[in-house]
C-alpha cells in the first residue's frame, strides 16, 4: 500500500559523497548515515523542493537500506509516515533573505546598495600607542602597538564622519592610556554616539588613577588579562583592592593548559562573575588541537536553532556588521585582511567594499574541507584562528 514519508520543517537533510546527516533544529537530534547508492533516489526526491519534503513510498518495494533510513527518520522523529497523501506536506528549510545580495544582484529594479548603512552596527577603534608585544590583536581585542596614537579629536571626527543612526556598539581598544582627561572627554561623546560603548584595556595599563576614572564612567570596561609576570602582578593588586566588588569584566587569554588552570583558580578565588576565556594561538598547535579544535563529541553536542543554521549558511556571525579602525587611519572589516578603505571614506563606500570583497561579513564555511563535510553548517562561522593557522577548518574530523 502506498504511504507518504514526510520530513518535519525543522529537519535538515545534508548529503555529501557517501555520508548523510539528519538534523532536527527543534529537538537538536542528529544522526549520520551511510549515503549509499541505494538511498540516492529517495534522498534526492526528498530534497527536490517542489516535493515539499514528502515522497510516496511503497514499503513492500523498499530496499533494506531504504527501510533502515525510513525507520531512522520515524524512530528519531525527523519525520513521519501517513497514509493520507492529500494532507501530506511540509516546508523544507529553504532560506529566504529579502535583501540577499545575490538575489538583489539578479533583480534589475533593485540595488544591492539599498539600506546598507543598517548593516554597520559595530565600530571598533584601536587607539594605538606604544605597546610592544605580541600581535594578538589579530586574534582578539588586544592593544595595538604603534608609534603614534589616534588623537581624541581624530576618533571623534571619525565617528562624526560615519554619522550613522544604526551603530549599536562602539569598542575602544586602548594601548596606552596616557592622559586621563582624554578618557573623560572621550567617554561622554562616545556614549552619545552609540547605545553601548565598551572599553578594552590591558590590565598592565591600570593605575589607581585610571581605575578610579574608569569605574566612574558608567562604561563597560573589559580588562585584557595575559599570563605574564607584570600583568599577573597588576591583576592580583587590582583584585585584592576590589575584592568582592569587580567593576570590570575580564578577558583571560589562554595559550596553555597551565594558563587555563591558573585563570580558573583565580576566578574561583576572587569570585569573578563576568569573564571569558580567549584561546590565543602562539605556536601552541598541540594545545589548540586538543582544546580548541572541535571533535566529533563537540559537534554532536551542538544544539542550533534553524535561525542559527541559516545564519551560518549566509553570514559570518563573528564578523558581520563590524568595521575596525587601526591607528594608521585605515579601516578593516577583518584585521587579517587588507583594508577596505580609510577613515576619510564614506561609510557607504566602506560597506560596499566589504560587501564586494567579502573579507569578513559573509565568509562562511563554503571552502574545502568544510564544504565536503555534512557538519558544514553546524560548525561555528570561521573566525580569526583559521586565518592565523592557515587552515579552513578547526576540527579533527577532516
Amino acid at each position: 500500500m502506498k504511504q507518504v514519508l514526510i520530513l518535519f520543517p525543522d529537519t535538515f537533510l545534508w548529503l555529501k559523497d557517501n555520508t548523510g546527516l539528519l538534523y532536527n533544529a527543534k529537538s537538536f537530534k542528529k544522526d549520520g548515515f551511510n549515503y549509499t547508492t541505494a538511498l540516492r533516489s529517495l534522498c534526492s526526491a526528498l530534497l527536490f523542493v517542489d516535493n515539499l519534503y514528502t515522497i510516496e513510498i511503497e514499503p513492500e518495494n523498499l530496499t533494506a537500506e531504504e527501510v533502515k533510513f525510513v525507520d531512522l527518520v520515524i524512530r528519531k522523529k525527523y519525520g513521519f509516515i501517513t497514509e493520507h497523501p492529500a494532507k501530506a506536506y511540509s516546508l523544507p528549510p529553504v532560506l529566504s533573505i529579502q535583501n540577499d545580495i545575490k538575489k538583489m544582484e539578479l533583480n534589475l529594479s533593485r540595488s544591492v546598495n539599498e539600506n546598507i548603512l543598517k548593516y554597520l552596527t559595530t565600530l571598533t577603534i584601536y587607539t594605538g600607542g606604544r605597546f610592544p608585544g605580541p600581535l594578538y590583536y589579530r586574534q582578539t581585542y588586544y592593544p595595538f602597538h604603534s608609534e603614534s596614537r589616534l588623537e581624541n579629536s581624530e576618533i571623534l571626527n571619525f565617528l562624526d564622519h560615519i554619522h550613522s543612526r544604526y551603530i549599536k556598539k562602539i569598542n575602544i581598544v586602548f594601548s596606552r592610556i596616557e592622559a586621563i582627561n582624554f578618557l573623560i572627554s572621550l567617554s561622554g561623546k562616545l556614549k552619545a554616539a552609540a547605545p553601548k560603548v565598551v572599553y578594552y584595556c590591558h590590565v598592565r595599563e591600570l593605575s589607581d588613577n585610571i581605575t578610579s576614572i574608569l569605574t566612574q564612567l558608567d562604561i563597560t570596561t573589559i580588562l585584557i588579562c595575559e599570563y605574564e609576570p607584570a600583568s599577573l602582578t597588576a591583576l592580583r593588586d587590582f583584585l585584592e583592592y576590589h575584592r568582592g566588588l569587580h567593576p570590570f569584566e575580564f578577558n583571560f587569554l589562554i595559550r596553555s593548559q597551565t594558563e587555563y588552570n591558573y585563570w580558573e583558580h583565580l576566578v574561583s578565588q576572587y569570585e569573578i562573575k563576568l569573564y571569558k576565556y580567549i584561546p590565543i594561538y602562539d605556536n601552541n598547535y598541540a594545545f589548540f588541537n586538543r582544546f580548541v579544535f572541535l571533535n566529533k563529541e563537540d559537534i554532536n553536542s551542538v544544539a542550533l536553532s534553524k535561525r542559527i543554521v541559516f545564519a551560518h549558511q549566509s553570514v559570518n556571525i563573528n564578523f558581520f556588521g563590524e568595521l575596525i579602525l587601526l591607528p594608521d587611519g585605515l579601516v578593516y572589516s577583518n584585521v587579517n585582511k587588507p583594508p577596505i578603505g580609510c577613515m576619510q571614506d564614506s561609510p557607504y563606500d566602506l560597506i560596499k567594499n566589504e560587501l564586494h570583497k567579502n573579507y569578513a561579513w559573509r565568509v562562511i564555511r563554503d571552502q574545502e574541507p568544510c564544504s565536503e563535510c555534512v557538519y558544514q553548517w553546524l560548525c561555528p562561522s570561521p573566525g580569526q584562528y583559521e586565518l592565523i593557522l592557515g587552515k579552513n577548518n578547526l576540527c579533527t574530523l577532516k
Partner: protein
Amino acid sequence: MIFRKINPTEIYENLLNLKQITFEVTDACNLKCNYCGYGDMYFGYDKRESKYMPFHQVRLLFDYLFVIWEKDRPASEIPMTYISFYGGEPLLNMNLIMAVVQYLDQRHINRNFVFSMTTNAVLLDRYMDYLVAHDFHLLISLDGDKAAQSYRSDIFGRNSFDKVYKNVKILQNLYPAFFMNNVNFNSVLHNRNSVEGIMTFMKKEFNKRPSISELNTSGIKPDKLEEFEKTFRNKMESLMLSGNCEKISEELFLSDPRTHELLLFLFQYSGNYFKDYNSLFIDEENFTVTPTGTCTPFGKRMFVTVNGKILQCEKIDHAFALGKISEEGVLLDLNSVTEKYNYYLEKMEVQCKSCKRKKSCIQCLYFIPGIAKKEKPVCPGYMGDAAFKYYAASCMDYLKNHPHLYAKIMNEVIME
C-alpha cells in the same frame, strides 16, 4: 513574541528614508466614475471642491524634509523617493507638477527622485511629451474594453473608453520603449468586467499585465450599500469563474489573492524568511511585533491632501491626518503622531495578543470600525484557533496543489 509601541525616533527614521510622497494635486476630476472612492458611494474624505494644490504648499513640505535629509545619513547612500501625483485627476494640475519637477531638479539633494502618476489618461495626449521627457511612471486607470470601462464616464455620463484608448495607443505608438518600461495599468473589478476579460484585453491590446483591484469595501454610505453590492465583484470569485483559471493565476502570481496569502503565510510562519541579514541575529522570541498589520507612519509613504493634510497613506480616512501644511509651514509633531498612533494600537492590543494570526496580520487599524471612537473596536480580521487552523490549512492546501510556488516565493520575491 513581544508587542511594542512605536516611538518618535522610528518615525523620524521613516522620514529620513522616505520611499514615497503622494500629492493629491487636485480634488477636481474630468470623469465621474460611479464607484469612485471620492464619489457618492463613500464617506471619509474632505469635501470635493475642485481645489488645486498650490506650489508653495509642496515647497513647504520639501523644505521641511530637506532639513531631515541633509542632517542625517539615510540607510541607502542615494535613497530613491517616488514623487507621486494623485487626484482627482492629476493632469488637471500640470502647472503644479511641472513646478515640482523643476524645483527638485534645481535642488541638489542627494536622492533619486522618481516621478509617478495615477491618471485616467483623458488628457494624456496633451502632456505625454513632457511625461516621457521626465521619465514619469504612469499608472493608467482602465477597466478593460468599452463595456468594462462604462462606469468610468464623464460628467455627461459618456463612456471615457474611446478617448482613453486612443490616447494610450498614441503613447504606445509614439514612445514604445517608454510605454513598455514606464506604463502600467490598474483595472477596477466590478459587475461589468471580469479578471479574465481584463487580462485578455490588456494582453491583446497593450501586452501588459494590469493590477486588478476590488472596489473599496470601507466607508460605504449606508444608503449606497445596495448599489455597492450590485457593483462589487470579488477578485477570487471572478478568477475562479474564468475558463483558464490556472493559467491566469500563474500570470497574476502575487496578484492572485491566494498566492499573496500564501506568501504572507510562508514569510511569517515557515521560520525560513528573514527581512535582512540583521534579522538573522534576532532570536524569534525577541522579535517585536506592532499590534495590527498597520504600517508605521511614513514607513511606506506619505500622503498630502489638496487641503494640506498629511496622512500616512492615500487609502485612509482624511480624519486620521497626522499633520498639516499651513501657511506657516509644516505642522508635524512626531511626539503627537506617536501618541496618536500608539493610542490606537493600545486599543487593539488585547485582541491582537489572543489573535492567532498576529504574525501575518494585514488588518490596517485605520479600517477598524470605531477605532477613533470611545467604544471598544472589534477587529474584523481577528482569528481564533479554529479560524487560524482553517486559514493555515487553506494556505497549505493551496501550496500542495501548486508546489512550485514555494521555491519561487522563497527564492525570487523581493518585497517592497
